[in-house]
C-alpha cells in the first residue's frame, strides 16, 4: 500500500521502493562506494601520501632486506615482545617493521620504514593516508564508531533492497543487456544506470551482501549472545584450532595452559592486561637460527608466491618462534589458505600448529568477505574489483542524476522549482563532484601541510571536510548548470595537478617511478590523470549541451542541461 493511497502492481511498487530508498540514501551510498573503491588501493594511497618512502627503490633481494631488518631490530628492538617484518613488494616500496613492546596490545601505527636499497631508516610524515578513506567507508567520521557502522549498515541493507527491487523494476535489463542510447536525455541516463548495474551485477551483489555479513555481529547479535555469551566468544569459538595429530594436540594443550596462567596472573594483579604482562618472568636469552637461510628455504617451497611478512615472537629468547606468511592465497574458500609456516627460532624445527577446520558456512563467509576486502588476491583481481567499484559508483551517480532528469518536465510545467527538487539537485552536485574534489583536497593538504608538524593528520582530515562543505555551499549558492560546470572544472584541474604536486613536494616524479618500476606510486598519478581527463570530458560535454531538441511546444530548457554531464 502506498502512502498516497493509489493502487499499483508489484512492479510499480518495486519501482516506487527503488526510487525512494535509493534517493534517500543515494548520496551516502555514493560516498561509501567511492571511498570504498579507493580503499582497494589504500596501501598505495598511503604510500603516495608518505613521499619520504618514494626514495626507496625495491631492487634488493628479500634476503638482503631481511638482513637490513634484523640488523635494525637487533639494535633497537632487543627487548620486544614481537617483531613484524613486511618486505617491500609490488604494493609497498620500503621495508616496514612493527615492534611490539611487552605489555602493549595490538595497535595500529608505529610503523618503522627502512629503505629497501640501503637499509637506512626513513622517517615518514604522520598521516592517516588511505586508512582515513577506508575507515570513512564503513564508520564515517566524527561520531561514535557504532553509530557510523549502524548508519552505513542500514544504507547497505537498503542498497541490497535497491539491487533486488532494481532488477525487478528494470526487468528489461537482461533483454537490453548491451543497449545504450546516447544523447537522448532521460533514456540515456536510464541506459547508463542499467548498464553499469547489470554489467557488474555479480560485484554489486557480492559487495553489498558481504558488507552486511561484515557487520552481522552488529545487526543480529542475538544468536551469538545467546549461544556463546558474546560476539567475541562466537568468533573465537568459530576459529578455534582443532588438533589433527597428537603433536598438534600436545602443542595446543601447552598453549592453553600458558594462556590460562597468563590470565590468572592478570586476574590476581587486578589491573589491566598491560600491567600483568610486565610482571611476567624475564625469559633467558638464546641466539636464534639464521633467519635469512630459513626464509630462503621457505621461499623455495612457495615458488612464485613471495613471502609477504615475517613475524618473530619473543625474539632472542629461549621461547622465540618465527612465522612466515605468503602473499597470495590459492583459494578464497578457506581462511587458512594463505600459506604460512612456523618454526622454533632457536632450533629451527618446524612447529606444526593446529588450525581451525573449515565448514561450508565459513567458506561462504570467507569467499565474499575476502573478495570485499581484496585479501590475499593478486593485482589482477584487485584491479578488476577496483574497476567494478568504479562502475558501481557510476551506477549510483547516474541513478541520482536520473531522478532529477526524470522530473525536469514536471518542474517546467510547474513553472518554478519545488524546494525538494532543488535540494536533490544541490546534494547531487555536492556528492558527485564535491566528494572527488574533497578527496583531491585531502591529497593536496597532505603535501602542503608541513611534514614535521605535530598532529598533522587531523588537519588533513579537516581540510577534506571543509572543502566538501564549501562544495555544498557553492552548489547551493550557484545556479544548477554553472554549479556543475564550475565543480567539474575544479575537479579536473585538481586531479590533473596532482602528479605535478607530487613532483614538486618531494615525491617520485611520474617518469622516475615508471622507470624504477614503482607502480604503486606511478599508478596513483596515472589514475589521477585519467580522472582529470574524465572530468574535462564531462565538462566539455555539458558545456556543449544545449538541451534536448524540443518535441512539445515548449521553450528550450536552459536550466536542465546537466544531462550530458
Amino acid at each position, binding site marked *: 500500500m502506498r502512502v498516497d493511497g493509489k493502487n499499483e502492481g508489484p512492479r510499480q511498487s518495486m519501482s516506487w521502493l527503488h526510487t525512494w530508498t535509493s534517493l534517500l540514501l543515494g548520496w551516502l551510498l555514493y560516498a561509501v562506494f567511492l571511498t570504498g573503491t579507493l580503499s582497494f588501493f589504500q596501501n598505495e594511497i598511503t604510500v603516495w601520501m608518505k613521499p619520504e618512502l618514494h626514495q626507496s627503490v625495491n631492487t634488493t633481494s628479500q634476503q638482503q632486506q631481511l638482513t637490513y631488518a634484523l640488523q635494525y631490530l637487533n639494535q633497537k628492538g632487543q627487548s620486544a615482545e614481537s617483531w613484524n617484518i613486511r618486505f617491500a613488494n609490488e604494493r609497498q616500496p620500503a621495508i616496514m617493521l612493527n615492534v611490539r613492546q611487552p605489555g602493549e596490545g595490538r595497535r595500529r601505527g608505529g610503523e618503522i620504514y627502512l629503505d629497501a636499497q640501503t637499509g637506512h631508516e626513513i622517517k615518514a610524515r604522520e598521516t592517516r593516508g588511505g586508512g582515513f578513506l577506508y575507515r570513512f567507508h564503513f564508520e564515517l567520521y566524527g561520531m561514535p564508531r557504532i553509530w557510523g557502522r549502524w548508519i552505513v549498515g542500514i544504507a547497505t541493507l537498503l542498497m541490497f533492497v535497491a539491487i533486488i527491487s532494481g532488477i525487478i523494476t528494470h526487468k528489461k535489463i537482461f*533483454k537490453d543487456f548491451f543497449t545504450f542510447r546516447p544523447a537522448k536525455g532521460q533514456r540515456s541516463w536510464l541506459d547508463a544506470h542499467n548498464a553499469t548495474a547489470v554489467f557488474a551485477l555479480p560485484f554489486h551483489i557480492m559487495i553489498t551482501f558481504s558488507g552486511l555479513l561484515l557487520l552481522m555481529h552488529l545487526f543480529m547479535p542475538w544468536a551469538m549472545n545467546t549461544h556463546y555469551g558474546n560476539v567475541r566468544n562466537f568468533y573465537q569459538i568459530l576459529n578455534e584450532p582443532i588438533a589433527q595429530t597428537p603433536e598438534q594436540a600436545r602443542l595446543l594443550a601447552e598453549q592453553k595452559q600458558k594462556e590460562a596462567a597468563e590470565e590468572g596472573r592478570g586476574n590476581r594483579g587486578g589491573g589491566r592486561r598491560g600491567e600483568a604482562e610486565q610482571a611476567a618472568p624475564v625469559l633467558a636469552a638464546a641466539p636464534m637460527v639464521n633467519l635469512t637461510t630459513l626464509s630462503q628455504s621457505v621461499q623455495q617451497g612457495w615458488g612464485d608466491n613471495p613471502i609477504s611478512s615475517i613475524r618473530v615472537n619473543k625474539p632472542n629468547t629461549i621461547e622465540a618462534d618465527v612465522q612466515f606468511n605468503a602473499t597470495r592465497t590459492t583459494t578464497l574458500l578457506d581462511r587458512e589458505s594463505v600459506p604460512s609456516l612456523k618454526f622454533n627460532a632457536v632450533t629451527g624445527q618446524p612447529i606444526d600448529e593446529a588450525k581451525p577446520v573449515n565448514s561450508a558456512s565459513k567458506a561462504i563467509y570467507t569467499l565474499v568477505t575476502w573478495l570485499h576486502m581484496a585479501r590475499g588476491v593478486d593485482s589482477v583481481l584487485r584491479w578488476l574489483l577496483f574497476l567494478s567499484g568504479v562502475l558501481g559508483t557510476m551506477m549510483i551517480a547516474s541513478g541520482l542524476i536520473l531522478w532529477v532528469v526524470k522530473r525536469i518536465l514536471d518542474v517546467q510545467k510547474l513553472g518554478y522549482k519545488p524546494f525538494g527538487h532543488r535540494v536533490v539537485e544541490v546534494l547531487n552536485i555536492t556528492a558527485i563532484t564535491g566528494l572527488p574534489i574533497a578527496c583531491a583536497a585531502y591529497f593536496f593538504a597532505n603535501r602542503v601541510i608541513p611534514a614535521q608538524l605535530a598532529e598533522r593528520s587531523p588537519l588533513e582530515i579537516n581540510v577534506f571536510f571543509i572543502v566538501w562543505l564549501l562544495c555544498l555551499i557553492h552548489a547551493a549558492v550557484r545556479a544548477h548548470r554553472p554549479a556543475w560546470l564550475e565543480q567539474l572544472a575544479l575537479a579536473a584541474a585538481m586531479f590533473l595537478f596532482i602528479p605535478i604536486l607530487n613532483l614538486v613536494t618531494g615525491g617520485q616524479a611520474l617518469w622516475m617511478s615508471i622507470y624504477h618500476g614503482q607502480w604503486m606510486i606511478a599508478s596513483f598519478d596515472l589514475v589521477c590523470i585519467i580522472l582529470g581527463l574524465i572530468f574535462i570530458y564531462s565538462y566539455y560535454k555539458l558545456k556543449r549541451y544545449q538541451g534536448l531538441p524540443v518535441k512539445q511546444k515548449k521553450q528550450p530548457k536552459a536550466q536542465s542541461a546537466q544531462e550530458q554531464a
Partner: protein
Amino acid sequence: MAAWMLWCVAVVALSSLACGMSKHQRDIFTSPISAQNSRCFEIVGWSVLLLSAVAAIYLKGASIGLSEWLGCITFGALAVGLLLTYHPKKLLQANVIAAALFGLLLILSLI
C-alpha cells in the same frame, strides 16, 4: 596476461551473443539474419563463455578463477556495449582484433 586473454574471449563470446539478439542485428548486419543463424550465434556465445569459465577454474581454482572470470566478463560486456553503441558495423573487425590479440598473448605465455 591471463586476464587479458579472458577479456578477449569474453568480447568474442558476448559479441556472438549480441549477434544472436534480434534487437542488435539491424545495427550489426546489412542483411537480415535467419532464426537458425541467430540460434547458432547464441549457442556459440554461450559455449565459448562456458569453456572460458572451465579454463579459468582449471587454471586458478574455483573461487579465484570464477571471480576473475566474472570480472573479465563485466568489462568484456562494457566493451561490446560501447562498440554496439558507437560503431556497430565494426563489431566483426573488433572481434578479429580481439582474436588476434588472444592468439598473440597465448603464444607469448606459452614461450
